[in-house]
């Protein structure tokens, strides 16, 4: 754990200083903003994934794979489409973000209920439905984006659809507050999360209001996904990667260790990866691709090792 903390600090320091030519007073604040964005995304994705895997009791299900990120982009697109881009551009980004999160909570709740409420709870069906839902959301979003006037769309795209390359810094403050608040709540729930990991029946037997806690935890997960998607766009496999690394490196079931551990690993992956790619190898913007590649490999390995039984 200490090693992870130290390593993430090193990654951050390298990110801030390496190959910084020219004016320091310009470079430092610029990089600090970017670093803050990366750290927020790392924490949000890691915490969301571990909690999601705990409440679904599975290690290959993640909110990203289940299409939550794509859902956020779809809701954003529908808002732009429905209200008109001019009006959306005039709205305070924080108010817009709040509206999007609210809508997403409703949809995620419905989706989750539809998928987990039924009598059959086949994991493979869930995963496949989740992935295809993600494709469907992304395709509908793509379709609607085509229907918006192409010129206007280009202007909007810059403002509304973020990526690792263009972290949306107007939302950084809000995002930091939201992530901190969610983490504070989860911190108080640590023992409850440990119990939820035992499964529904044991949780009830131990006196935890299982259904209510799962619903609340899912709400928090949804908020975290919304934050990370708003900052850098949808990333499917990062959560899977860091959560499973955390389980591997920290052989415990205690969330008091797992959650911060996964968050630190995510920081190392994102900040370290970005430093390596951007400064050392000088490939910008491919971090998302590399994560997709590594995360996909992890998934295949998990499947081959039979982790999905």
């Amino acid at each position, binding site marked *: 754990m200490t090693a992870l903390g130290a390593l993430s600090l090193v990654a951050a320091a390298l990110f801030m200083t390496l190959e910084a030519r020219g004016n320091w007073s310009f470079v430092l604040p610029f990089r600090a903003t970017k670093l803050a964005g990366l750290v927020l995304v790392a924490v949000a994705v890691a915490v969301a994934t571990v909690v999601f895997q*705990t409440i679904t009791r599975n290690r290959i299900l993640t909110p990203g794979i289940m299409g939550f990120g794509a859902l956020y982009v779809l809701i954003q697109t529908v808002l732009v489409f429905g209200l008109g881009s001019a009006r959306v551009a005039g709205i305070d980004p924080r108010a817009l973000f709040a509206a999007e999160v609210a809508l997403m909570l409703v949809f995620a709740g419905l989706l989750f209920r539809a998928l987990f409420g039924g009598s059959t709870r086949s994991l493979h069906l869930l995963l496949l439905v989740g992935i295809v839902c993600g494709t469907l959301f992304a395709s509908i979003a793509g379709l609607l984006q085509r229907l918006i006037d192409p010129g206007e769309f280009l202007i909007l795209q810059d403002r509304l659809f973020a990526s690792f390359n263009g972290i949306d810094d107007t939302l950084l403050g809000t995002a930091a507050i939201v992530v901190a608040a969610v983490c504070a709540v989860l911190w108080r729930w640590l023992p409850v999360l440990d119990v939820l990991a035992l499964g*529904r029946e044991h949780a009830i*037997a*131990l*006196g935890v209001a299982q259904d209510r806690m799962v619903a609340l935890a899912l709400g928090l997960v949804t908020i975290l996904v919304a934050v990370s998607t708003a900052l850098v766009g949808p990333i499917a496999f990062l959560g899977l990667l860091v959560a499973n690394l955390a389980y591997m490196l920290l052989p415990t079931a205690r969330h008091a260790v797992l959650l911060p551990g996964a968050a630190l690993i995510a920081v190392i992956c994102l900040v370290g990866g970005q430093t390596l790619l951007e400064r050392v190898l000088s490939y910008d913007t491919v971090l998302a691709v590399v994560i997709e590649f590594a995360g996909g490999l992890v998934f295949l390995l998990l499947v081959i090792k039979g982790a999905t039984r």
Partner: protein
Amino acid sequence: MIAIESLCKSYDGTPVLDGVDLILPQGGVTAVIGPNGAGKSTLLSVMGRMIRADAGRVTLDGRDLATAPGSEVARRLAVLRQDNQPSARLTVQDLVTFGRYPHSHGRTTAQDRVHVARAIAYLGLGDLADRFLDELSGGQRQRAFIAMVLAQDTDVILLDEPLNNLDMRHAVGIMALLRDAARDLGKTILVVLHDINMAAAYCDRIVVMQDGRLIHHGPPEEIMTDALLSRVYATPVTVHRVAGRLVALY
């Protein structure tokens, strides 16, 4: 005292519990027996709040279990279902410590540790305490879960086929443990059993279920008869007295 009042539950129109009434006085071990699909596990699940009943209610000293706060009930009633497959990688020690959750909510006290150590010792798991559950045999894992339920230290304990996967020695050990806990500590224990001879040897009362109904309830001598068992299991059964114990042959 646990009172079950006209409990009903059906799945897709098929009744699984069909008006079950039962009163369990405090103290003593009660076995639930009956053929497959009689509704034994469903009864236990409803009593343990895992499933909601369609009608009727279960009360513990007058409080409705379905509406009472979950953690309050968990300090008075523990339940262990069949097929316990934890997805998390836990050690035996971790798992048994979870039995204390209703009492301490995750902040383990010295008193909790005493309970945990005692439960682990009771079930002879001392050497395995730091092993992960997925590294244990089925029987060892089953004992770890029973230890967790014991550590919960409740007045009422519900167990669904706790002898699954256990060898003779450990099966007898668990049954003797349950009998002693009921006699010495005044616990009320309800246990679903397939082995009617175990039920006859170690339980104070036997409840017989068939087709979602409770058809008989009484001390082992009343239940262990050729006619009753042959009818319930639709198989010729004869009961003999061997070395002072009632034994059913089938």
